[in-house]
């Protein structure tokens, strides 16, 4: 493997006055499962369409396997796209849809049939070749769209929210299948999604975007545990933010957190950069636990009251109020045998590991 398969530098996109993509710097390695994650309207689709060639960047450079893509139309790019609507050709059957891109490959009919059959088998649609396009379910349409793109063996496969039209069960099944498929074919996948769970489950790396800008690019665990900004932290999962004051103490940062008291943070707990003065400290709900009678605790603890309780079956979420702090913090507990579920108003002792704290400059 040599160099990134996709490299964007200084890419800008304007729609009239609207600045849809701002200073995009991004390298994606060959064989990576890469996700673009962000809220609606942040420019994910625009970025994907710029890579595919449907939009021209207003400025900046886009390199695809070392070739500058300026002025190269979509049909000449080594990318293929799975559209959000799947864009299955309604006048062609499944096999004809899958064979569509092979038209100019100079294959014999038999070679073509073999490739189509192979692609259909790959997505679990053996024997569906003769089906009319409109006689397919949502999940099947999406598999056809995948097969149609993969049969061309593109360098990069672009997927624009491919699972958002499926119901929850189907979506979870396809998440697993897509991931497996990507490992099997080894093609670089770039997935657009606004579902943070989906991005975390499937990706090697994730770029989080807000308002046309990339806020952070990182592997799922890094992104979740060490978000660089409070905006990223808030978008990925749930994060409790607590006001704090911070000052340097040698290598580490000494903080005084409202309601939780003193904590010393290592430099890696300040992913967005070390900051002092008025800051915020964040902690994930599952990093805080309830302490029950007779349990032995090594971590820091505090006294609280349960304000609200949300029972999810496998988990229970609690909003608990710290003494002298207005905003409650959220914590989650696994429901294991013998562990009681506290009711609203019950006193609760909580414990947390200071290593789970993350510092945000604002």
């Amino acid at each position: 493997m040599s160099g990134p398969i996709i490299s964007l530098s200084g890419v800008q996109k304007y729609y009239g006055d609207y600045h849809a993509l701002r200073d995009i710097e991004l390298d994606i390695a060959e064989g990576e499962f890469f996700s673009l994650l962000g809220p609606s309207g942040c420019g994910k689709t625009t970025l994907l369409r710029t890579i595919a060639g449907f939009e021209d960047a207003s400025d900046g450079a886009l390199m695809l396997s070392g070739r500058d893509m300026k002025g190269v139309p979509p049909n000449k790019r080594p990318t293929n796209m799975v559209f959000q609507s799947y864009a299955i050709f309604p006048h062609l059957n499944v096999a004809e849809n899958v064979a569509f891109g092979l038209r100019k490959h100079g294959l014999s009919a038999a070679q073509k049939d073999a490739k189509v059959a192979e692609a259909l088998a790959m997505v679990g649609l053996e024997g569906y070749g003769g089906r009319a396009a409109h006689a397919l379910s949502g999940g099947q349409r999406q598999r056809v769209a995948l097969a149609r793109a993969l049969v061309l063996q593109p360098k990069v496969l672009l997927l624009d929210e491919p699972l958002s039209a499926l119901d929850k069960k189907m979506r979870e099944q396809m998440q697993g299948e897509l991931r497996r498929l990507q490992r099997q074919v080894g093609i670089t996948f770039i997935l657009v999604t606004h579902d943070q769970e989906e991005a975390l489950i499937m990706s090697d790396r994730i770029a989080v975007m807000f308002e046309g800008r990339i806020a952070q690019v990182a592997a799922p665990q890094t992104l979740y545990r060490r978000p660089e900004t409070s905006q990223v932290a808030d978008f990925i999962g749930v994060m409790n933010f607590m006001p704090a004051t911070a000052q340097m103490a040698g290598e580490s940062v000494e903080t005084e957190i409202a309601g939780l008291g003193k904590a010393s943070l290592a430099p890696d707990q300040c992913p967005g950069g070390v900051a002092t003065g008025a800051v915020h400290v964040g902690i994930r709900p599952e990093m805080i636990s309830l302490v029950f009678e007779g349990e032995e605790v090594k971590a820091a603890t505090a006294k609280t009251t349960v304000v609200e309780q949300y029972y999810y079956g496998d988990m229970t979420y609690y909003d608990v109020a710290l003494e002298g702090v207005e905003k409650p913090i959220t914590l989650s507990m696994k429901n294991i045998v013998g562990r009681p579920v506290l009711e609203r108003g019950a006193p609760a002792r909580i414990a947390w590991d200071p290593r789970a704290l993350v510092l945000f400059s604002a």
Partner: protein
Amino acid sequence: MSLRVYAIAYLIFLYLPIFLLPLFAFNDSTIIAFPLDSLTFRWFYELWETPALHAAVQNSIFIAVLTAIFSTLLGICAARAAAKYEFPLKRPIMGLIMVPLVLPEIIVGVSLLVVVVQLLEWQLSTWTVVGAHVLICTPFSIAILNGAFQNMDTSLEEAAQDLGETPFSTFRLVTLPLVMPGIISSLLISFTISLDEFIIAFFLTGADPTMPVYIWGLLRFPQKLPAVMALGTILVLLSIILLTIAEYYRRRGLARAGLKDKGGFL
């Protein structure tokens, strides 16, 4: 209940005159009146025996075919441009193209006559009628094709390009097949409009009359009236056949696209 009565009354009102056509076409009397005489085919035979009518029908079909092709081609270009591109003054331009749809035909006929004869100093001929018919049929074509082009998901065209097709081959392989029902509708409707259009043809026709102009000429001779009825009968049959074909293609287009049937002709 009252709705059903209304519907039946309306249908009778609509179709009674048309049922009278075959009645008198097969009636063995030159006078169009009840009671009917015996059955005859002589009016059809008379049609067969009238070379001037054959020339008029041929002329009309020639004009209608050319009109259908030209107005549909123009319609495809306009509908495609409207669906795909944004350009300044798009709405006013599209609106202006549609105006002939509502202009009184007699006004269009007179002004075209003035333009052709006075300004351009052309000879009136079959071609001037073709030009005028294209002018009045193109708005219908655009209206029909606009629907077809606008209903098409643009991501289908993008998908074709993404899969390696040029814009031109994308149009041929994806766009055209998907709007084909619209194209066939447009061809059939402009063909029909042109075939029975009278006023403009009356003004602009040269030495060779079109079929409606010829029929109008016949009306001065009462003994020819039953032959006109016979001709009318043939035309009604032909229209029904054309409409059925149009409907067949429309349904096939819908079925291929997997869409639900909403309305239609039949």
